[in-house]
């Protein structure tokens, strides 16, 4: 089903696809940033749920395991929004969740598998 088309046509909601994992005739996953009128957004989410599409809000998605992280900072170079940075004094990794767009580029970059996503 052309979900993003219907979102735009029926609800005037723009769907910016951040990640898509959808194979033909199979269940898939889309990470989308939705923008539009607040009521329209609620209606759009309601409509998707009525079609048995599981909708979860993308909060606290990127998780960094502090016990595994070695603070090398390699992830900071691929983070497009600078949600991941190194503290200039302590050189510890700092993660500003509000800046994260869940592009997930940090996940395969991490050499010690300290970063994961809970989607």
């Amino acid at each position, binding site marked *: 089903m052309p979900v993003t088309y219907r979102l735009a046509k029926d609800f005037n909601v723009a769907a910016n696809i951040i990640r898509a994992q959808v194979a033909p005739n199979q269940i898939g996953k889309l990470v989308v940033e939705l923008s539009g009128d607040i009521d329209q957004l609620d209606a759009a989410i309601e409509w998707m749920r009525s079609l048995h599409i599981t909708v979860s809000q993308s909060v606290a998605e990127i998780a960094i395991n502090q016990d595994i992280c070695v603070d090398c900072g390699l992830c*900071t170079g691929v983070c497009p929004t600078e949600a991941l940075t190194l503290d200039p004094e*302590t050189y510890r990794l700092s993660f500003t969740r509000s800046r994260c767009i869940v592009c997930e580029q940090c996940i*395969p970059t991490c*050499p010690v598998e300290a970063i994961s996503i809970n989607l």
Partner: protein
Amino acid sequence: MRTIAEINEKIARQSAVVLTVEELKARVAEVGVSQAAKEVDVITTGTFEPMESSGAIINLGHTDPPIKIRRCWLDGVPAYSGFGAVDLYLGATQAVEAIDGEEVREKGGGHVISDLIAGLPIQLRALGQVTDCYPRATFETTITRDTINQFYLFNPRNLYQNFIVGVNGGDRPLHTYLGPLQPRLANAVYSNPGALSPLLNDPNLQLIGIGTRIFLGGGIGYVAWEGTQHFPLQKRLPNDTPIGPAATLALIGDAKQMDARWVRGCYFKSYGPSLMIGVGVPLPVINEEVVARCAVQDNDLVAPIVDFSIPRRVRPTFGLVSYAQLKSGRIAIEGKPVRVAPLASLFLSRQVTIALKQWIEAGKFTLAKPVAPIPKERSFLPQDIWGAQVVLE
């Protein structure tokens, strides 16, 4: 000024004055080289970074009936066995061999080494050559670091004196030993901790030599030899620090004493496994020159920016950049700002210098005078094809 023996006497009395190399640099800025040299006995340097030319020697102990191992896997990672019957060498970058139908795991020798150090059990599978001395053909067991005779790291190339900065001037993403390099110079990666780094604070290896006692992976280790690709003749700045990869050291140390916090298996996507190791080197303040060398700052150290999009032995470069610029997180390449990330953990490098300082202050670690110097001259030979070559007429 003071000898290593005198410093060791002070360490034994727990009265030695030990500063981390960062504390020393700050002290020199305050009181100058001469005064700092009067005050300080030992300076601790350190790094924590992937060092792929690393591995572990293991002696299993003999089975009954005995086996002469010719092929061997530790948690699926092949180990070299072409020497003593139950001697193994497990290389850090050796990738796991997936058994048919099994998903390929992003794991290798580095992970097995850190798991063994952590005390975890490791599955061992071996095939032997049947001989009159060694009749057994196969052997399977579970080992831990406490059930094997020897388990020591012998790393042919660690502690690179400086390295490079990797970028990608091409138009497709590259997966490298420096991690992902995004096309069109979208990011840069450097891997040396700069002013914290042991060999950048002793640029001419006047203090560090064969037999120098060091902090290796949380245990005590030694400088064993010059490292592979040791290239002391690299071009140098007036402060004698090299402008690119230069001297290297081979290190050795008992892995049974090590701590998995300082020895970490790692994996670079679409490149392969490696091993991150914390290494600390103490520098004895035997004269003022030691302090003057250790006062070097990130501003005074440079590395070349190398374009990985040309996969040749000699890759094009975009000139030199200082470690102060690198640590700022942003450099300029041909006028364009580029985000730069370290690969060495600057945080853990600093923690190594602090841990080694605490050992020395507590009298647990004394300094060893080198028994022989590291060679100052070595050519850096390329490997080209000699003999018959195809000639296009």
